[in-house]
């Protein structure tokens, strides 16, 4: 028995057959019914946004304000020289432009750009955190990043009158007398409330996608022809939608894409395999008492995630929204440009993949120079203005 699942609106559009764009000076780009459905599935944008049920201050204006203050505050680092914004700078799309993050020391992975985080299921390249607030704890206490203990964090927040007052107002407890671990969690929840407000706006692609949905060929023609050709590769020959699907252009899960995963000579970055181990060991995961989701329904992925051998070498599939502004790329920042990324998939080294030979998802795309340029042109249309609150 076989069941084909398509959104009804998409199915209705498919009845009209393949889409043919308005003819221009170059050859018209055509999309098959399946490609058209795949394109429409990348929207609409923005999607509905919902508070995090595991964070009781998610969406709270006072929490967003406190979180914003903490995000830029160097008191959160041991030597008072770094803040969250050191590696997640608004001026560089909430990333840092470096291959690997540098806090108090060089870390193993690229600093992921922060945007649209409310859509994530997992956080960090290995998914070691199952909530944004749990992820926000990590850099505070990591000795290579901000390097504070929970006790040091509590003391520093207590010594800052405005922050202490905001904390008391928000969490109904005096920070100086709250348990240090509770202060750490509450500060992370305020940080998460702020980070949830970092969102990307509409893009040229979104305008094209919506025009396609309306069969508005005049508006569709405004989308650059190289980007149209690149989009056709993205949803067709490139099979990029196997992992980069949906409005946020990601499965939210983890894949091995053949990027070497040695953090340094002789030391392997365990990727998702280690991420699952860390998740399970974390006292702050969604199954813990710190989750504000009373019935722990938000913890379904955490409860059911299975650690498998193939998780070695897997890293989180990143969103492609604003990808042109978040170089360098991959978990270790080893690819400097979008051209490098496209070349990586075009000339893929299959020896580096862990999947079963003959049944691999990834194969070298063998793109022509024109196809590679078109694919980059498409990716460059996924950029939108970043906004954040309060």
């Amino acid at each position, binding site marked *: 028995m076989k069941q084909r*699942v398509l959104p009804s609106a998409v199915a209705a559009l498919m009845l009209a057959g393949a889409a043919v764009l308005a003819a221009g000076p170059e050859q018209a780009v055509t999309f098959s019914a399946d490609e058209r459905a795949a394109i429409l599935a990348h929207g609409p944008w923005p999607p509905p946004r919902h508070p995090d049920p595991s964070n009781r201050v998610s969406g709270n204006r006072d929490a967003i304000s406190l979180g914003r203050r903490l995000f830029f505050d160097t008191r959160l680092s041991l030597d008072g020289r770094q803040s969250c914004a050191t590696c997640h700078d608004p001026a560089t799309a909430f990333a840092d432009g470096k291959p690997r993050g540098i806090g108090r020391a060089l870390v193993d992975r690229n600093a992921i750009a922060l945007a649209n985080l409310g859509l994530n299921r997992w956080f960090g390249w290995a998914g070691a955190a199952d909530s944004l607030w749990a992820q926000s704890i990590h850099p505070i206490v990591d000795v290579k990043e901000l390097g504070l203990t929970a006790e040091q964090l509590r003391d520093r927040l207590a010594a800052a009158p405005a922050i202490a007052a905001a904390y008391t107002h928000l969490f109904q407890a005096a920070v100086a007398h709250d348990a240090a671990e509770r202060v750490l969690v509450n500060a992370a929840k305020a940080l998460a409330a702020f980070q949830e407000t970092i969102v990307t706006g509409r893009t040229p692609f979104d305008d094209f996608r919506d025009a396609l949905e309306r069969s508005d060929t005049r508006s569709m023609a405004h989308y650059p022809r190289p980007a149209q050709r690149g989009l056709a590769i993205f949803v067709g020959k490139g099979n990029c939608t*196997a992992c980069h699907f949906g409005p946020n252009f990601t499965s939210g*899960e983890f894949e091995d894409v053949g990027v070497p995963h040695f953090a340094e000579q002789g030391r392997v970055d365990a990727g998702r395999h280690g991420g699952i181990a860390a998740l399970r060991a974390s006292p702050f995961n969604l199954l813990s008492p710190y989750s504000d989701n009373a019935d722990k329904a938000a913890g*379904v992925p955490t409860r059911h*995630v*299975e650690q498998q051998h193939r998780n070695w070498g897997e890293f989180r599939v990143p969103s492609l929204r604003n990808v042109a502004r978040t170089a360098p790329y991959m978990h270790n920042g080893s690819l400097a440009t979008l051209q490098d990324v496209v070349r990586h998939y075009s000339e893929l080294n299959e020896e580096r993949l862990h999947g*079963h030979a003959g*049944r691999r998802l990834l194969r070298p795309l063998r793109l022509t120079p024109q196809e590679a340029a078109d694919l980059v042109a498409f990716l460059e249309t996924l950029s939108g203005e970043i906004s954040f609150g309060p």
Partner: protein
Amino acid sequence: MGIGAMTRGAGALVSLALSAGTIAHPAAACPTAEQGFRRLASPEAEIAYRWAPPALKAGQFFTAEVVTCRTRWGEAVHDIKIDAAMPAHGHGMNYRPSAVAIAPGHYRFTGLMLHMPGTWRITIDLLQGGRHTRLTHEVDLSP
């Protein structure tokens, strides 16, 4: 199709034990299409199943309800397992589902998620005494 004939050695399917341990129930009255159930049958068995939400989407968690309607040997089902894999890619799910019996012969599975567009083969194994019966259902997920 019996479990012994299916995909053994492929590494794609992981045998899943029920989190609630062994469950022994006779076949139940078969729910209808009006209740949102579909049927899946082989010479050995027939089940009714439904998903929640009803339309599966790549990357979204869902639950499955399974009702055992008929078994060939008339023995109680003492274990039931569900799994899913992508035959073309040789991988299964990233999650291990668990089950509870919510009525005699009626089970609810949680923790199911098909993380990629394409063709998935969902397998439901019924264990009765020493006999295994496997029922399969294929679903194509668009991106």
